[in-house]
């Protein structure tokens, strides 16, 4: 198990590693001490020989001499003692047996020396010296055999050869004890020293292990650092590099360690690099610079290079430690940012140019409405300088009456993000009032309002004048409409009598002469009526008061009705009406039925009138390719020149026809054009002078209404004679005697109708309550009550609420018609009365009543 401990140095280290280091250190000491003793013993041996040789080389007898026995003793005894332990240091260095043998041998050497010196007390110091040297082993146990040898030697020789050990002929046993005691005394301190040394060695081992662990950590940090790291010599050569740096620059570790930093530095950056190195060497602070390195493949890398100086324990510079980080991407981003900034500045400059040169007021405001930037035009608008405007609250310049509205608009701007065409008023610096048209947008992100404004003071003044003129024109137009309405009413009322009695006379079997005269009366009345109607219609169209009821209208039906009406005229002029036979009954157009028929009648009338006698008028209809139906009316008249065609639809311009006997108002085609436009249709003409003209109208096609509904309509045809059931009671309220007589005579021919009349409104109401008539005919101009009031009272009363009311009025305005229809009228008939329409309405309203009566019968 790999055990980690917290050492005294505070670092984590392995105990096993500490033990290993301790044992290594101990073995080194043991081996080195073995080697030391090998040398010491050899030296002792050699020194003993030399000393013996010099001190007593020879022993003499007279003039003859021989080698002194001490020399032999030094050679052989010393050799016998020294050679074996020296040999052991060679074969078993560091082994326990080696040092124990050395211990014993060294003490024997001491004993020999003491003996050779005759027990000189000085020689005993060899023992103490030897013990000290033995303690170099830092193993107190080697002192034990040494001490034993010394003690035994002294005791034995002290007893048997005291002179050889103490230099005296007789020695006390206490002397041996004393000597042994001194040895043990020294042993005690040597043992203490050995134990202390062992503790120190252990401490060193622990610190070394901790240091190794720390170094390993630093090495790992170095190798696995996410940034490039290198130890670089003072000559800038790479001594050590980590993997990240190799990957950055694309070189292998061996490649890099054969290069210098200058070899991979961009040439332009080399001088700066040398300068940085010199600054570090001269005591400068740690430097961090951006530098370009060249990868092995030639690619240029931007790096942040941080360098610091590494010193040895004496403070001398040894290496540089450099750390590099790849900032190429950051550089690219910075470059892009610079580009963006430059573009932004250019755009800002352009914006400023626009703002300074724009005639419009351009400004930005912060979220509190203070000016942030203003264009030159702002100064002209408000009369303040830019410096005076910037930072100023915009609302302070607003005309006090407009401040509330302006604040509301600003709130809307913040909510919607945009406003356009907002006008408010400001007070200029000179006190004048100006109207300003605003468009603004709000950036929630930037909290900025971007505003563009125009000085519309002049325009506002013009608009005000125009508005006043328009109001004036509207008032005039309204007066004209009122005038026309009144004229229409005043003209229609006598016309009602003229045409009504004319028609009665015509129905009472007049003589031929009377019939002719009556015909003139009716013809003139109708012409006058047409003229009035057309004038009114033109007026309505131009004032936008024409009310249309667009519905699917069957073209064939409208054509047949129009042709039916035109056949008498055509027959009179000998004009042949050519129509496709049969007419397509399935084609419908979206039109106002009456107005559509009015247009057709107008075109047919013109075609007949302006065709020569015995001429031909051709009518046809066809679908266009664009979803419309075209009805064409062609004549064989004189045709119209192209110069005159452009004036064809001009009101009252008859294109010279006023010089001819052909009667006309000059309003017909103008009215047709406006009616067709009002019905989203069109009208046109093709004409060839001398050959005739072709008029056409186009209307959008429509889907066919339900056949059942159409059938019901067809079945609703008038039945003038009735069925002979119980009589119907009709109440007629009319203050004009002529009109009253006309209705009485008209209904006199209807035996199933009983007519009750009243010339005052209040009386009419009472008669209605009393008799509960089946129908009430109501004129609007009564002497005591207006017609609408009579209608209102009838509607409010339970007895009369259900009685249908038909309005008969000369007021043909649609507004009046709608008003009364909304008030409860069942139908609205205009004077002069069309008798066919009159009876159709009566039959339509009274038919259900008669049916109920039949069922009851």
């Amino acid at each position, binding site marked *: 198990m790999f055990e980690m401990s917290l050492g005294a140095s505070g670092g984590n280290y392995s105990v096993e590693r500490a033990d290993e280091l301790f044992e290594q250190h101990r073995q080194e000491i043991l081996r080195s001490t073995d080697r030391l003793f090998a040398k010491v013993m050899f030296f002792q041996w050699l020194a003993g020989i030399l000393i013996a040789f010099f*001190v*007593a*080389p*020879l*022993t*003499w*007898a*007279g*003039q*003859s*001499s021989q080698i*002194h*026995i*001490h020399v032999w*003793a030094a050679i052989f*005894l010393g050799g016998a003692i020294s050679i074996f332990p020296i040999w052991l240091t060679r074969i078993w260095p560091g082994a326990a047996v080696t040092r124990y043998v050395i211990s014993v041998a060294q003490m024997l050497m001491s004993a020999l020396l003491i*003996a*050779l010196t*005759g*027990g000189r007390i000085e020689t005993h110091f060899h023992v103490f010296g030897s013990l000290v040297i033995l303690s170099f082993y830092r193993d107190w146990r080697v002192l034990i055999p040494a001490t034993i040898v010394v003690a035994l030697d002294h005791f034995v020789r002290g007893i048997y*050869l005291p*002179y*050889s050990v103490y*230099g*005296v*002929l007789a020695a006390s046993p206490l002397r041996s004890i004393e000597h042994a005691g001194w040895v043990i005394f020294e042993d005690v301190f040597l043992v203490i020293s050995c134990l202390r040394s062992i503790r120190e060695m252990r401490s060193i081992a622990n610190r070394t292990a901790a240091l190794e662990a720390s170094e390993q950590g630093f090495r790992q940090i170095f190798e696995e650092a996410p940034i490039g790291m290198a130890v670089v010599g003072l000559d800038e050569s790479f001594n050590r590099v980590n993997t990240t740096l190799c990957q950055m620059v694309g070189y292998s570790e061996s490649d890099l360690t054969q290069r210098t930093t200058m070899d991979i530095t961009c040439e332009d950056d080399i001088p700066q690099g040398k300068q940085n190195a010199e600054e570090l060497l001269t005591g400068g602070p740690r430097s961090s610079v951006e530098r370009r390195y060249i990868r092995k493949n030639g690619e240029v890398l931007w790096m942040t290079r941080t360098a610091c100086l590494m010193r040895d324990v004496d403070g001398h510079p040894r290496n540089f430690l450099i750390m590099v980080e790849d900032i190429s991407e950051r550089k690219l981003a910075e470059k892009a940012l610079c580009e963006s900034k430059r573009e932004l500045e250019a755009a800002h400059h352009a914006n400023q140019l626009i703002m300074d040169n724009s005639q419009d007021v351009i400004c930005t405001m912060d979220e509190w409405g203070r000016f942030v930037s203003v264009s030159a035009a702002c100064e002209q608008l408000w009369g303040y300088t830019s410096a005076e405007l910037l930072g100023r609250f915009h609302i302070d310049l607003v005309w006090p009456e407009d401040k509330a509205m302006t604040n509301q608009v600003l709130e809307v701007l913040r909510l919607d993000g945009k406003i356009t065409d907002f006008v408010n008023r400001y007070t200029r610096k000179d006190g004048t009032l100006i109207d300003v048209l605003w468009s603004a947008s709000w950036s929630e992100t930037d909290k900025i309002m971007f505003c563009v404004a125009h000085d519309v003071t002049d325009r506002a003044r013009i608009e005000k004048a125009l508005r006043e003129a328009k109001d004036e024109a509207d008032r005039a137009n309204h007066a004209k409409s009122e005038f026309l309405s009144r004229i229409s009413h005043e003209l229609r009322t006598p016309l009602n009598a003229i045409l009504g009695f004319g028609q009665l006379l015509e129905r009472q079997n007049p003589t031929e002469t009377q019939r002719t005269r009556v015909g003139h009366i009716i013809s003139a009345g109708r012409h006058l009526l047409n003229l009035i109607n057309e004038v009114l219609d033109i007026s309505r169209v131009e004032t936008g008061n024409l009310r249309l009821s667009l519905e699917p209208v069957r073209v064939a039906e409208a054509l047949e009705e129009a042709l039916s009406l035109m056949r008498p005229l055509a027959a009179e002029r000998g004009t042949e009406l050519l129509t496709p036979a049969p007419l397509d009954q399935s084609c419908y157009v979206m039109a106002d039925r009456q107005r559509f028929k009015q247009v057709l009648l107008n075109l047919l009338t013109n075609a007949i009138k302006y065709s020569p006698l015995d001429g031909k008028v051709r009518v046809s209809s066809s679908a266009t390719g664009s979803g419309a139906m075209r009805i064409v009316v062609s004549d064989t008249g004189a045709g119209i020149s192209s110069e005159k065609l452009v004036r064809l639809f001009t009101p009252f311009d008859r294109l010279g026809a006023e010089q001819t006997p052909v009667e006309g108002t000059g309003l017909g085609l103008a009215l047709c054009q406006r009616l067709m436009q009002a019905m989203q249709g069109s009208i046109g003409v093709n004409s060839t002078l001398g050959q005739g003209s072709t008029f056409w109208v186009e209307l959008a096609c429509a889907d066919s209404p339900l056949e059942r509904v159409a059938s019901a309509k067809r079945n609703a045809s008038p039945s003038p004679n009735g069925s002979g059931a119980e009589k119907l009671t009709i109440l007629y309220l009319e203050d004009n005697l002529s009109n009253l007589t006309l209705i009485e005579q008209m209904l006199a021919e209807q035996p199933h109708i009983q007519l009750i009349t009243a010339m005052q409104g209040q009386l009419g109401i009472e008669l209605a309550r009393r008799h509960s008539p089946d129908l009430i005919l109501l004129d609007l101009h009564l002497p005591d009550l207006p017609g609408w009031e009579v209608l209102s009272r009838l509607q409010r009363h339970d007895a009369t609420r259900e009685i249908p009311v038909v309005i008969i009025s000369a007021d043909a305005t649609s507004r009046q018609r709608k008003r009364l229809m909304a008030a409860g009228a069942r139908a609205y008939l205009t004077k002069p009365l069309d008798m066919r329409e009159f009876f159709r309405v009566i039959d339509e309203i009274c038919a259900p009543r008669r049916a109920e009566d039949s069922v009851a019968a």
Partner: protein
Amino acid sequence: MRILFHYENTPGRVGALSQAWPAAQIERATDRPTLVMLAHPHCPCTAASVGELAQIMARLQGRVAAYVLFIKPKGAGRDWDDTSLRRSADAIPGVKVVFDLDGVKARRFGAETSGHTLLFSVDGRLLFSGGITASRGHAGDNAGESAIVALVNNQTPARTQTLVFGCALANRNETGPTALCLK
């Protein structure tokens, strides 16, 4: 070691001692005892004896006359006897160094081993004979030194003869029969 110990503790030979001042060619002191040491100039063991002689001379402070006779064999070179041992002896105050050509004087004194020391009284009687070292070449307190000091101080020594440890003064073949001196 046994050989060594045997060598160390084996005394030299002692010749026929003269119990009175022999007729040598040196003069005996008449006012004080006279000490004579016979030495071989090259004997390494005698250096200890000379050292002990210096001790004796220092302790007796001139109360004894001393001679050291260095033998010089015939045919020996001119400087044969110019040794450190002779210079050491010559340096001892009160000691006269005398050359003994071919050991004639030594034989008259009856000495055969270097370091042999003799003490004669004022009247020429032999007071002490023997070595003044405890063993061969070993300096230090010894019975010979103690005896000489005691005799000069008119005291009774523990012994008057001691063993002599040193080299032979002459080749054995030249000296004839020898005898160990008695304790």
